[in-house]
């Protein structure tokens, strides 16, 4: 690979930003089709009720209304499926209740889809929906894990006794119990992982069309994974063959996991368009997004760490209860299991690890992946527990981590994963130096002189990205493969179109992938365009989530480029009258080794499309596709250090410094990588200090708007001090790992550890997320008696 000004390793400005920053992005809501109608989704205002009846007569007579459909109209249509089958400890499959796209007989959360009103205008549809009279016969609701598991609790589904979906485990329980028997010290912790609302800046939207002339359906939708939507919507819900269903996810304004799932609205819109023979458009209002976008996290856990006399970890036992919400969203069941329990070795050599997870249905919005998806939950628990162990044993909190680091690779953890590579000492050392960890006490004293309590916290972590390989995830219950596709089309004059099955909704793929191809083929960066998001244009691909796009999708592109080069060598050998084995490709030229005889990529491409003088038996054209199924996850790792200042009078926490030392594998575009880290850190600080989705006991959403739900703002964040130490992933050719979720995984425990460190002199030894000013003030009051 050759380095050039826009190749691998260059901070190229993002191609896509010109259109985004000048208001020329083309988002789903920007798309209008001739003859389109507008759909409004009527949602349940109550958390749990039998539907006694629905009177739509007044609404049907309202101005502009074309049609109203309710659950009974869609009764013959398939329900919304879930993507991962979990088995309980006893071998039984999880309880998998049906999820009708429009509620049938019962509503199960505030926001549940009850009816669609289709009218000439958005406003007419909404006004008519207000005229629908639904007879809600309210039932007791369970709005939390505690309520769901209480004796005599209301049942979300009759077929799920005790509201339990599954009771899962991973790891060797007996070996872990034995480790505790040998332990000198046992440290315990109870933690809650707060429920979050994703809040992508672009609300969900969809526009569906049915062409009676061809029988083709098209759905434009705000999705991170258009082919996955086609698979689920076509095969499971509507019974449409793939060639008759096109899914387009155009520019998408942020996903963070909440645009992975196949949503009921997508099925309702597509089915409705088919019924009416006209395009139907729907755009979610922000107020509805709060109660219908999948939420994230929501765990209650208790954990114990067994240590020997020297502070070596002997065993870890984790018991978690997870809230899945009212229905099983697409990846709801695997987030608290296979994206969570298998992370508990962390960067440590703990020889025995056991994790059990009981997941519950509740009358709340379905819970699914949110930036990090399972890994932030695991990292938070582990790094809070390790910190607590250091304090209780009187050990230095850096040394307890260092003492337990994994240093030999590959490393087989006791919870399924095998880490291929890493250097945890290097990122730890880098973070300590960059954060001036050693100089902290002077800063603490300086803050104290101003009446502030300063604290510093650390988190050393690994994550598992690019979930794979397909055969393994299939054996664990995944109902899809987790490979990726890439196609590279060299045009006759040498410019290049790249087709990827991943989807960019903020990640900058159009730039990063173009850099890889530009670098490998030696063509101008500007001559490479990346196409994504349209099932009619791109090969079947799995989309973007779990920091997989570069490691899996980028590798597929890499392999497709290699195929292009191999074919180009054959054409060049023919033109140069040389043996294929003697052709070398570098900087866009095919050269006969040891000579100055060469052909440019452009000449070779033109020959491929105008094959007048061409190798016998070789297909014309210069376009190659590769499907890449990784051998393993990738394992980014790092150390995050947070420094906070607490105002003891008000309880306000200010994050004064955040230092990251991250190993994300080879970096293609440093600016994009740092941007991803910044975004993730903001997300993580949001969870640690500000964000919390709250429900009332009756299932009403308390934090249903920005008046009550606190998103992190620029003023809440310090300038981030980002540092890199790179080890290369050993099993993909680019050596890349993934970066999109690092901040939201690594930083929350560092922040909370810092808050507790700041407050410990006041007698405060625990703090739950989010550490809001009120919560901190109350903890101080309690500690001071």
């Amino acid at each position, binding site marked *: 690979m050759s380095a050039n000004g826009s190749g691998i390793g260059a901070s190229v400005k993002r191609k896509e930003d010109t259109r985004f920053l000048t208001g020329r992005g083309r988002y789903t809501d920007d798309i209008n089709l001739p003859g389109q109608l507008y759909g409004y989704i009527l949602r349940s205002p109550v958390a749990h009720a039998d539907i006694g009846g629905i009177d739509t007569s007044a609404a049907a007579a309202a101005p502009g209304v074309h049609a109203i459909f309710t659950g009974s109209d869609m009764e013959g249509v398939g329900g919304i499926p879930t993507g991962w089958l979990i088995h309980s400890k006893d071998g039984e499959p999880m309880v998998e209740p049906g999820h009708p796209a429009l509620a049938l007989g019962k509503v199960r959360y505030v926001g549940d889809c009850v009816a669609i009103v289709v009218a000439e205008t958005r406003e007419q549809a909404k*006004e008519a929906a207000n005229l629908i009279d639904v007879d809600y016969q309210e039932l007791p609701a369970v709005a939390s894990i505690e309520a769901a598991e209480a004796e005599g609790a209301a049942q979300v589904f009759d077929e799920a006794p005790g509201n339990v979906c599954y009771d899962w485990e991973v790891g060797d329980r007996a070996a872990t119990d034995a480790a505790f028997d040998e332990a000198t010290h046992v440290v315990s912790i109870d933690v809650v992982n707060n429920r979050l609302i994703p809040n992508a800046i672009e609300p969900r939207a969809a526009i569906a069309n049915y062409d009676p002339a061809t029988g083709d359906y098209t759905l434009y939708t705000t999705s991170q994974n258009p082919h996955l939507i086609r698979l689920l919507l076509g095969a499971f819900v509507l019974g449409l063959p793939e060639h008759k269903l096109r899914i387009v996810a155009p520019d998408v304004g942020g996903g963070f996991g909440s645009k992975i799932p196949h949503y009921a609205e997508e099925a309702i819109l597509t089915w409705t368009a088919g019924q009416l023979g006209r395009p139907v458009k729907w755009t979610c209002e922000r*107020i509805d997004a709060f109660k219908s976008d999948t939420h994230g996290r929501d765990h209650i856990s208790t954990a114990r760490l067994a240590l020997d006399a020297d502070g070596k970890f002997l065993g870890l036992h984790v018991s978690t209860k997870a809230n899945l919400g009212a229905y099983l969203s697409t990846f709801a069941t695997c987030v608290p299991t296979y994206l969570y329990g298998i992370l508990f070795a962390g960067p440590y050599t703990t020889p025995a690890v056991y994790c059990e997870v009981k997941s519950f249905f509740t009358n709340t919005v379905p819970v699914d992946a949110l930036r990090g998806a399972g890994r932030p939950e695991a990292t938070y628990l582990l790094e809070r527990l390790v910190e607590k162990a250091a304090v209780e044993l009187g050990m230095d909190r850096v040394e307890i981590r260092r003492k337990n680091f994994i240093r030999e690779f590959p490393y087989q953890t006791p919870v399924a994963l095998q880490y291929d590579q890493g250097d945890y000492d290097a990122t730890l050392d880098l973070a300590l130096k960059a954060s001036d960890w050693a100089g902290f006490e002077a800063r603490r004293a300086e803050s104290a002189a101003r009446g502030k309590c300063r604290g510093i916290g650390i988190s050393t972590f690994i994550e598992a990205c690019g979930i794979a390989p397909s055969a393994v995830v299939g054996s664990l219950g995944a109902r899809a493969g987790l490979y990726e596709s890439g196609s590279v089309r060299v045009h006759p004059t040498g410019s290049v179109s790249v087709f990827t099955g991943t989807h960019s909704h903020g990640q900058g793929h159009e730039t990063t992938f173009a850099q890889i191809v530009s670098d490998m083929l030696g063509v101008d960066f500007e001559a490479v365009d990346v196409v994504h998001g349209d099932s009619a244009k791109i090969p079947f691909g799995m989309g973007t989530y779990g920091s997989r796009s570069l490691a899996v999708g980028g590798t597929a592109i890499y392999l497709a480029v290699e195929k292009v080069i191999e074919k180009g060598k054959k054409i060049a050998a023919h033109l140069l009258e040389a043996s294929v084995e003697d052709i070398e490709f570098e900087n866009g030229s095919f050269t006969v080794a040891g000579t100055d005889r060469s052909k440019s990529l452009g000449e070779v491409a033109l020959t491929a499309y105008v094959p007048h003088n061409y190798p016998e038996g070789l297909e014309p054209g210069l376009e190659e596709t590769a499907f890449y199924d990784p051998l393993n996850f990738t394992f980014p790792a790092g150390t995050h250090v947070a420094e906070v200042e607490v105002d003891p009078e*008000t309880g306000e926490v200010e994050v004064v410094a955040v230092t990251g030392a991250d190993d994300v594998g080879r970096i293609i575009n440093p600016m994009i990588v740092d941007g991803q880290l910044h975004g993730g850190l903001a997300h993580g600080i949001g969870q640690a200090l500000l964000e919390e989705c709250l429900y009332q006991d009756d299932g009403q959403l308390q*934090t249903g708007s920005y008046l*009550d*739900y*606190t998103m992190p703002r620029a003023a809440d964040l310090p300038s981030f001090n980002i540092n890199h130490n790179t080890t290369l992933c050993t099993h993909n050719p680019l050596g890349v790992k993934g970066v999109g979720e690092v901040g939201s995984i690594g930083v929350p425990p560092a922040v909370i550890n810092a808050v507790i460190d700041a407050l410990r002199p006041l007698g405060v030894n625990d703090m739950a997320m989010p550490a809001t*000013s009120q919560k901190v003030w109350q903890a101080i009051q309690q500690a001071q008696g």
Partner: protein
Amino acid sequence: MNDFTYHAPTSLDEALAALRGGGDGAKLIAGGHSLLPVMKLNLASPTDLVSLAGVPGLGDIADGGDSVTVGAMCRHAQVAGSAVVQARIPALAAMADGIGDAQVRNAGTIGGSVAHNDPAADYPAACVALGATIVTDRREIHSDDFFQGMFATALADDEVVTAVRFPVPARAAYAKFANPASKYAVAGVMVADGPAGVRVAVTGASGDGVFRVAEMEAALGASFSGEAVAGVAVSSDGMLSDTAAGADYRAHLVTVMAKRAVEACG
């Protein structure tokens, strides 16, 4: 949001006529930053909106020597950036500069804020502490009489605020603890040492809207120092309570903010 008739009068008389013509369903709109959000949620559904944007003479700031008069349609950013306000009552400029965010400050108005009397708005505390007079189309109302509890004022249904006149104090400062999500005041305290003596006015904390703290005023009258109010607790009875701040926490913050406001007076 439901349909409504939008009126764009170009004089105060036209505005008053439109307001009266619209009856109970008519509402004045100035910056719209309080009204439009509740209309979007269908919590308010006026039949007629009477805009003050085209009414001349409501957007000026005048230096009256011992007072500053701020026109009702002055945006928060205008007050914050006004050389007159900055010179004569810097605390008022600083307070306006801390309202909401930049978009709010560039659209929201002082007249709209005082007429709406949101219990968490900043201006009511400034008005009461500074002893301001609310000027309307027909009379002048002292702020002590103007604010009458949550969302309630002395205004008649068809009365229009045209200006607010602030006496220039010897010293004043505002300290606010903001809700982390909405940025509205959880406890905002304006302390002013002016022609009517020392006044301490609190917004954001009480369910009854802005209120004065007599005990703090007395303490400051004896000794104008942060320490004088640091020990004065206010009761949590009647305090607002929400997910961000319960009544006890709010009551506590009133004392802390009062102390900080006094200290900021210099």
